[in-house]
């Protein structure tokens, strides 16, 4: 859509950049996060012609972010999966969050990272990013039924993997 005025697009960038960045970080873009976000917005603009009228911009954008992230992760990914899991967490958890202890959150994060890719993606979108089921389906490009079933299996795996299961507090 060459006709699109870029000033209006700038407003969309400002509005959606935080969630785009969050998504890239959560999906593992690491040091490439800012590049991924920038690239995703440029690609989204160029692809506006294929955007379905009346659809919501956010999941559509996040899908591009997810694809870009996957590309950089793959390009970078000479590290073996084992090394990756052993590496220190490169995200910072807010120690002030009281609802769930820092220790428990660290455990959870490690468990999520150890999931097979598709389960990790679905848990990340649905819970860590707190997207609804429909948005998750749009971002990952899966049917809703697939989102449901993979999520279900992922939660089952997490339960088994976590040392103290669903501690009541």
């Amino acid at each position: 859509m060459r006709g699109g005025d870029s000033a209006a697009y700038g407003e969309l960038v400002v509005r959606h950049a935080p969630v785009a960045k969050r998504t890239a970080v959560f999906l593992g873009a690491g040091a490439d996060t800012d590049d991924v976000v920038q690239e995703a917005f440029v690609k989204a603009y160029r692809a506006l012609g294929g955007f379905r009228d009346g659809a919501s911009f956010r999941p559509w954008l996040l899908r591009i972010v997810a694809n870009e992230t996957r590309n950089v992760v793959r390009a970078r990914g000479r590290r073996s999966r084992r090394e990756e899991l052993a590496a220190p967490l490169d995200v910072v958890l807010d120690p002030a969050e009281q609802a769930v202890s820092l220790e428990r959150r660290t455990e959870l994060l490690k468990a999520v990272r150890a999931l097979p890719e598709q389960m990790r993606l679905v848990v990340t979108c649905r819970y860590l990013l707190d997207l609804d089921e429909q948005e998750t389906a749009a971002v990952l490009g899966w049917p809703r039924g697939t989102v449901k079933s993979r999520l279900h299996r992922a939660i089952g795996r997490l339960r088994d993997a976590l040392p103290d299961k669903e501690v009541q507090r």
Partner: protein
Amino acid sequence: MNLDDELRVLGRSVVVPPVDEELTAAVLSRVAGAPVRKRLRDRWRAFLAGFLVLIAGAALTPPVRATVAEWLHIGGVQAVPVGTAPTSAPTAPPVTGKLTLQDAARVAGFKPAVPAALGAPAGVEASSGFIAIGWANGVRLEQFHSEVHPLYWKKYYNGLEYVHEVDAFWFATPHELVLVNEQRVRIAGPTLVWVRGGVTFRLEGVDKARAVELARGTS
């Protein structure tokens, strides 16, 4: 607390650094076809571009609800969706000025593009950055420099359609046309809007097929 909620808390508690402050300017400069660079060389330009975007956003746009239809700017035209629309439109106002195309170019500061198929215009008007050309059969073609601020708001009810062949937008139904600077409103009929080389074109007074044909033959 169940596992789902624990995971949500985990997600919320991840500290993500703020967005790169040059992001918006960098994206805009890349999509605007400016020299493609990942990082803007000129910080001042970046700042200025970002600043203009903020101004434009603050002054003009109602809350964006994130669908394309709701934020679409087409060059100097901003499409604003509304709940209801007029059901009919008078014919486009005739262009009564009698400038030659050369004079119009001098006044407007750019050379007008004209659809070859329509022959000699019946009227030509111009002001700085703006030219209107009319033909005896009721066709009206406006062309103006597209800037950060839209010249027009088009309040459309439905029927905004992208026309791939000519990279244009077809406003299929009558709609209120607001000239932003002068707060002037008139009801416009179906209109084709497109942008070429920094100039926005509005073509009114013909059906879609004819409009597309004329747009294609405008140079």
